[in-house]
Structure formats: C-alpha cells, structure tokens
C-alpha cells in the first residue's frame, strides 16, 4: 500500500496538485504547552461559512488528505459541523488534538464520520510530567481516557511524543503506554521556534548526546540500519531532488486564511480571504520560489555527505534566516544518526571552538517532578 501512496504522490507532483493540506481551525487552546510555537489569542478566525467555502475550493483543487489541527480543534463550536462537511466533500480527514475534550459521545460521533486517524500528543506516562508541560492538571488522565474511547470505537489513533528536556527520560514509558493502549507512538525530537520569530523555545531542545541515544536505540526507528548507516555522498539524483513536499504537493492554511508552504515554514504566500486558493497555489510568487529550490541550490547542504539521508526541514531553515541555508536542528539530527558532521555544522563549530556545554539532564527532570 505504501508503494501506491508513493505512486500517487509522484503523480500529484507531476500534475502540480496539492494532495495534502493542513488546515488549522484555531490557535486557541485549552492547554498551554511550554514548547508551543503559537499565539493563542483569537485575532479573527475564519467563520464556519468561510471554512466551508475553503473546503469547497480545496476539493476542487484536488486536495485529498485534509489534516485538521490548531490550537485545539475541539475548542471550535462548529468543529463537528466542519468535519461533517469535510467528509461530505469526501476528504480523507486526519485530526490532531490533545483529546482532552473527547469523551464517549465525541468518540462515537468521530466514528460515525469515519475520520481516517486521530493523532494525540502525550508527553509522558507520568501525569506530573505531562501535566507540567501542558500546564493543565488532569490532562494526561483525560487524554488517555479519550484514547480508550476512540479505540473502543475502532478508530485509528496514534500518539505523538515530542521530546524536550523535561520529558526526555520518559519516552520508554510513553512507548509502553502506547503498547498497552494498542496505539502507535511516534517520537519527535524537534522543538519548533515560535511563529513570530522568537527562538527562545529552542532552549528546550534535548542535547546532542540524548539525541544520539534516541536515534540509536533499537526499536525506536523502523529500519535502524537504513537510518543510521553512513550516507551516500551528494550525487546528481540527490542534488536534483526536492527537499520535501511543502509547496510541491502539500501546503498549510492558518485560522486566519494565511497560506504557508507548511505549518513549520511560515512564509506568507497568500491569504484565502483575499484570493482563491487555487490561484494562490498556482501563481503565488512565494510558493513558486519555494518550488524552484532543489537540493543543488542549498548553500552548504549541496556539498554535505549527509545530504542523501538528511531530514532537512526547509521551514526550520527559513526560520533560521535562509530558506536555502542550513537547518541546524537537522544537522544535529543527522550527526546523531550517522556520526558524521554536516558541512554546516563543521563551519558553525569552528566559529565557536572552545565552548563546552554540559547538560545535567537528571537535575532538570528532578526539578520538574519537585
């Protein structure tokens, strides 16, 4: 089946079709996660009818995979109305939620609407750690209960576990929790900077040693051999390839109608309150600029031996200052994965030679549980 998905993606790329869109319905949230990159004030979200009109436009444009996220999607009073409309337009609907507001009734409604999958964020198997991150007492218990309700209705649920300093020790526990609930767990060791440019959140990122440990531990990755093997050097196929699907077969729409290549690539490319989605998708100068970038155009990366296996996020690179430049967080991940320093990491490190950083992880997790 994954072969068919790859085939469809290749076809979408050739036809210039936006196969996948993430639509954030709101930035409001009932939690206040310490690592969140959003401004939770409502600055004038799209109305129900604006969203329905957008869904019509997305369907006409050929969008198939519709991910609804935020903020917390269940904070919208019209949430189920929107999902129902999306299902009527035959989208494959995926949800991202903290699930705190999902009880039996909501789970049943979601089952009746045949949403394809629901991704729920769990930061730790320990309530004191999870709740300290979400800043909502009782949130872990409610999220876990929601997972049980959803699973009992036969829905496809995955757990997303974002790693940061505070919960670093707990990913084995989350994995065990996932196994107990019969739910797949994906680990993400990336903290994204705030959308407004504030990079202080990155201080929460786990350090290099921890990163290496996460990558190398057996069972964490689907194919350890493939991901941790020394990569192939830059060659023509890799250099002519595309960094990722953002702007090519996927894009993002904010609650205010802003179109970005990706939620993690906040380059303002148009607004659906002003222009038609398809006009933006096809003609936006910003999206066309993103489309013109191949691996060959990347400063540093085009000469880096990690290039064929690197998970470089162009959005993180954009937020770092240059969409053709390095994404240092991905350089660090590649280093953790392969043991080979990237071109960009080498030039960076040579400029800060002599600085020694020591992380005392144990002390931090003690402080959290205190």
């Amino acid at each position: 089946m994954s072969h068919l998905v790859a085939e469809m993606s290749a076809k979408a790329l050739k036809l210039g079709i936006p196969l996948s869109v993430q639509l954030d319905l709101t930035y409001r949230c009932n939690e206040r996660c310490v690592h969140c990159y959003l401004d939770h004030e409502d600055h004038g979200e799209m109305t129900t009818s604006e969203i329905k009109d957008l869904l019509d436009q997305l369907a006409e444009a050929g969008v198939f995979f519709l991910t609804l996220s935020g903020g917390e999607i269940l904070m919208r009073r019209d949430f189920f109305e929107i999902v129902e409309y999306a299902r009527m337009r035959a989208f494959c609907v995926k949800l991202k939620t903290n699930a705190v507001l999902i009880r039996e009734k909501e789970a049943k409604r979601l089952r009746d609407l045949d949403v394809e999958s629901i991704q729920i964020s769990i930061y730790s198997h320990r309530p004191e750690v999870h709740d300290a991150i979400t800043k909502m007492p009782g949130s872990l218990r409610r999220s876990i209960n929601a997972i049980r309700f959803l699973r009992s209705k036969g829905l496809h649920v995955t757990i997303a576990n974002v790693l940061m300093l505070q919960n670093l020790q707990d990913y084995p526990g989350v994995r065990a929790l996932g196994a107990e609930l019969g739910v797949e767990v994906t680990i993400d060791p990336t903290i994204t900077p705030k959308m407004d440019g504030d990079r202080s959140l990155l201080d929460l990122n786990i350090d290099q040693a921890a990163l290496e440990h996460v990558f190398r531990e057996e069972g964490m990755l689907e194919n350890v051999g493939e991901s941790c093997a020394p990569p192939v050097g830059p060659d023509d196929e890799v250099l002519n390839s595309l960094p990722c699907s953002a702007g090519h077969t996927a894009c993002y729409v904010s609650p205010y109608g802003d179109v970005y290549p990706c939620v993690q690539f906040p380059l303002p490319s148009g607004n659906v309150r002003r222009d038609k989605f398809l006009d933006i998708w096809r003609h936006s100068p910003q999206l066309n600029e993103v489309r013109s970038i191949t691996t060959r155009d990347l400063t540093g990366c085009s000469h880096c031996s990690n290039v064929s296996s690197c998970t470089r996020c162009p959005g993180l690179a954009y937020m770092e200052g240059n969409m053709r430049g390095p994404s240092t967080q991905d350089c660090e991940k590649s280093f953790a994965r392969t043991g080979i320093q990237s071109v960009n990491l080498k030039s960076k490190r040579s400029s800060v030679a002599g600085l020694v950083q020591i992380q005392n992880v144990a002390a931090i997790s003690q402080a959290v549980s205190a």
Partner: protein
Amino acid sequence: MSEKCYVARSSKIAARMMGDEMMIMLAPESTLFTLNEVASVIFKAADGATPLDEIVAERVCSEFDVEFEAALKDAEHMVKELAGHGVLIVSDKPTTQSRAFAQVAR
C-alpha cells in the same frame, strides 16, 4: 446478474479524482485504492438509484469504444471486488443514503 443491480458508494470512503484516476481511501483500515478512467466513471455514477446496466450503457459505452456485454461483465467484476472491500454497496433495490456522504467533487 439477472435481476437489477444497484450500486452505491459507501459513506466510509474518502475519494478524489487525480487526472483521470480516482483515489479512494477506506477509513477503518486506511486502505488506498485507485480506479482507472472507466472504473472512475462507474464509481462516480454509483448513486444507489441507477442500475449498473444503465450506468454501463449510458456512461461507459457512450464515452468509450467498448461493447456493452464486455463492459458490463468488467463492471460487474469491478463492483464485486470493490463491494468485497466495502467501498461499494450492492443491492437489488435502489438505496438512498441518509446523508449525502461521499459526494465526489469532480
């Protein structure tokens, strides 16, 4: 099939045309299907109220250069397979869906 055969799209599916192919995702198992041009035409016409032989005669044979008998046989085969997966619902009576689900865009 001697009796009339009515086909309706399941409400559990997600579907979208891409070029001349139809992509279909079946919700519970997240299985992906693709239908070729002819199959897509039949799928789009599967409203539960039109008998299959009528769909084949009016939509398939009129658009594509195929013989009715052969086309109907192929259509029955395709319908049986998709019904087995739960993508289509087959009945000997017209079915009306309670919600206008799976309204395929184009």
